[in-house]
């Protein structure tokens, strides 16, 4: 067969996460092959493997029908594989020409040979019908042009396979059209393109073949003609919803968190979110749905005081907490499970005893009158969390980094549910962990809700969101666009509101 890339049963795991599991994908020569999936589905890991940035634990890769065993991007480039990263790797104070030849020759005192290279690059550009002024400085280019420079750079190094990592994320619609035109040209000229994205409309517009990934596995590879957007969405997020037991308790009328038209802007004037209002009641799980980057992360961070708000008010238990510090908010009964446990929730090179204190350093339980840490209480509490949440660890003295992802997450959830908080903000509480840990965390969240806890749940996993939440609000472009009851909503409906198709 005429394959550019053929992978056989590739697996890759990081401590605690199975990032790729038995991925076999065939990519045809001179085609545009899209790889779609939610964040954390394993797309990036697969790309890193194909570009030689990381080695798979097992499995084989063939490039142009030859077995390839790459251990660095350099070897990948030699095999004809080039990558355009989402964040451009360009020196803005150099010209386009200088950027393209950067690193091609070994450092020496010879003449740069700009003229020679200019001619060669112009040849490449005319072959692939790509156009750019080689003498412009990169800082004067638009984002779309910078991306084109990256593409020319890679082609000039002899790439026959182009990996584009979320190429449209940074572009405005007109630039997207321009890019797609260029990509089609490249295809006509024999270049194979691997297009990574989670935007289904774009994928359906440009790709010949589409592979869908979910939780590290390749769900299916299909031809563009044979698939609809709904079907793709189903493959991406999974169809079968878990059937949670009907809840026996009722939501109380008491507003725990009350957010009144808050707005936040970034330094460059872009709006993170605009005029957002919602409430979470006692004994309720409120789900937040939204494609990543639509403001929900910033809203959550503004509730605990890490993100600044320009206007609006946040009430917690009836009290305005706008001017409270993060520490005061956490100590007054707001618990927070951040989306990235290793980066945001735990100190990986500290033991569990120390990790149980994080976020509660100053409460009476852990701080003595002499301002010292009450380590005995911390040991007791970490033992408590370990047994209640079934954390598999030799003892409390084990470093957090030694635990598997699921056990780390159980520990974090346990820590945040201790001390009877009145509000829990749970951001992606079960991302990238095994099913056992997942169902335990779900069970604990339900139990706490039934006991009166107000939960704000943010999840990219729509099954989880619909299965756990009592109500769901949808974020789109920095605003809440829809409120739904979780009893009568399907993932398809939700996906429609999340992508702005439904209103």
């Amino acid at each position, binding site marked *: 067969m005429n394959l550019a890339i053929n992978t056989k049963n590739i697996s890759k795991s990081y*401590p605690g996460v199975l990032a790729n599991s038995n991925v076999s994908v065939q990519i045809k020569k001179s085609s545009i092959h899209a790889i779609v999936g939610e964040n954390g589905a394993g797309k990036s890991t697969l790309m890193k493997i194909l570009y030689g940035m990381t080695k798979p634990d097992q499995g084989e890769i063939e490039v142009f029908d030859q077995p390839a065993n790459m251990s660095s991007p350099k070897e990948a480039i030699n095999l004809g594989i080039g990558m355009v990263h989402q964040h451009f790797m360009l020196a803005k104070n150099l010209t386009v020409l200088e950027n393209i030849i950067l690193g091609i020759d070994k450092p020496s005192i010879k003449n740069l040979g700009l003229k020679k290279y200019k001619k060669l690059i112009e040849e490449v550009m005319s072959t692939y019908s790509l156009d750019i002024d080689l003498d412009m400085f990169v800082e004067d280019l638009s984002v779309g042009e910078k991306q084109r420079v990256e593409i020319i750079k890679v082609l000039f190094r002899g790439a026959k396979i182009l990996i584009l990592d979320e190429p449209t994320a940074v572009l405005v619609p007109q630039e997207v059209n321009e890019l797609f035109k260029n990509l089609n040209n490249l295809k006509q000229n024999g270049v194979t393109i691997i297009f990574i994205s989670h935007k289904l409309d774009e994928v359906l517009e440009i790709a010949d073949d589409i592979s869908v990934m979910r939780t590290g596995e390749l769900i299916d590879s299909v031809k563009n003609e044979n698939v609809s957007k709904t079907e793709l969405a189903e493959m991406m997020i999974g169809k079968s919803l878990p059937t949670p037991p009907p809840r026996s308790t009722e939501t109380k009328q008491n507003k725990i968190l009350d957010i009144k038209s808050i707005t936040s802007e970034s330094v460059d004037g872009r709006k993170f979110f605009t005029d957002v209002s919602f409430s979470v009641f006692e004994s309720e799980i409120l789900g937040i749905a939204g494609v990543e980057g639509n403001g929900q992360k910033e809203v959550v961070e503004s509730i*605990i005081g*890490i993100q600044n708000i320009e206007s609006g008010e946040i009430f917690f238990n009836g009290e305005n907490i706008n001017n409270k*510090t*993060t*520490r*005061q*908010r*956490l*100590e007054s009964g707001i618990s*927070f499970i*951040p989306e990235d446990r290793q*980066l*945001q*929730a*735990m*100190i*990986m*090179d*500290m033991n569990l005893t*120390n990790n149980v*204190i*994080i*976020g509660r*350093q*100053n409460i009476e339980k*852990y*701080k003595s009158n*002499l*301002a*010292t*840490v009450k380590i005995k209480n911390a040991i007791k509490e970490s033992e408590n969390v370990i047994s209640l949440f079934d954390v*598999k*660890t*030799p003892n409390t*003295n*084990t*470093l957090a*980094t*030694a*635990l*598997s992802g699921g*056990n780390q997450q159980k520990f974090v959830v346990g820590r945040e549910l201790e001390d009877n908080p009145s509000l829990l903000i749970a951001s992606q509480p079960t991302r990238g962990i095994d099913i056992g840990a997942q169902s335990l965390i779900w069970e604990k969240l339900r139990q706490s809700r039934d006991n009166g806890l107000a939960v704000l749940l943010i999840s990219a996993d729509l099954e989880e969101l619909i299965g756990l939440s009592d109500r769901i609000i949808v974020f789109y472009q920095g605003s809440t666009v829809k409120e739904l009851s979780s009893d009568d909503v399907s993932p398809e409906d939700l996906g429609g509101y999340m992508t702005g198709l439904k209103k």
Partner: protein
Amino acid sequence: MKLSLRIASFSAPIIALAISFGLSSLILLFIGKDPIETFQIMFEYGIKGKSIVSIINRSIPLYISAIAVAVGFKMGLFNIGVEGQYLVGSIVAAFIGSQFSIITPLHILFIILIAVACSAMWAAIAGYLKVKKGIHEVISTIMLNYIGTGLISYSLTNVFDEKGSEYELPRTPELPDTGQMPALNNLFGLEDLQDLHGFLFVAIIVGIFYYWLVWKTTLGFDLRITGSNPIAAKFSGINPNRLIVVAMVTSGGFAGLVGLGPLLGYFHRFTIDFPTGLGFAGIAVALLGRNHPFGMGVGALLFAFLERSSQILDLNDVPKEIERMLQAFILLIVVVFYEVIRRFIVKQQIKDASKKVET
């Protein structure tokens, strides 16, 4: 931690020391000297009574300087400015301390407080610049070292110089007897040797205080988690800006004590001979001792020992620069071995944890 892991982490400096001596031996052989004889001469000279007193005296400021640096290191802050901080604190304390006389304990306490306050304020400038203007502390503290040195040269000649002194070179007035720290010789029965600085006690207290501050208090906990993972620290409610200023001021406060061993115990005034370079040496000792109060104590003694014992080498026709090389070798190699050991421990823990999962 399990016993085997504890032994492993202690072995790192010992292995590094052995390799360093090995490499230095090769160099000695290369220049035609007998390494065993050389090290033997150094050792024999280094353990003479006189040498031991000198080594301890020298290790006092080294140790305190290392602690000042380590406070910053613990939260990922690189205070390269201990050098400038201690010199600024020392000269001001030396001058003010010489202007009055009260009973000895109070007088010495007062001098200590002045030095600590001045050095802490000098360090606070770097903290302020980092928090308010985003200037990296390495740059600002290095620059403040230069500014401090310049200010000291100027003020030593023009402001703090002893009035009406016959002495040719600029120097501050001598501390009155009440401001001089008594030696510990009688206490340890060292009548026939030179003075053992009384500041030794302060150094030991500082070591204990540092341990308590960093490992026992909630402030120390905040420092350590910020050092390991600033993002998680922020999510846990720590205000990073406030902590940077606190850490910088604390580090500078410790730095204020660095010059006081020599000042109160020997020089009794600030002169142009006043020991410099202790701030930079402290960085090396902090690295060697892994910011641990005990480790840094051993490191300070080791470096002081090498410096003292190498004095004999010139008399035996061996270039004493060999000692500098030995120090550098130790530092380089020990850093590598600490990392090797750290990875070994993490691997061991991962193994133990996955065993637990299987059962």
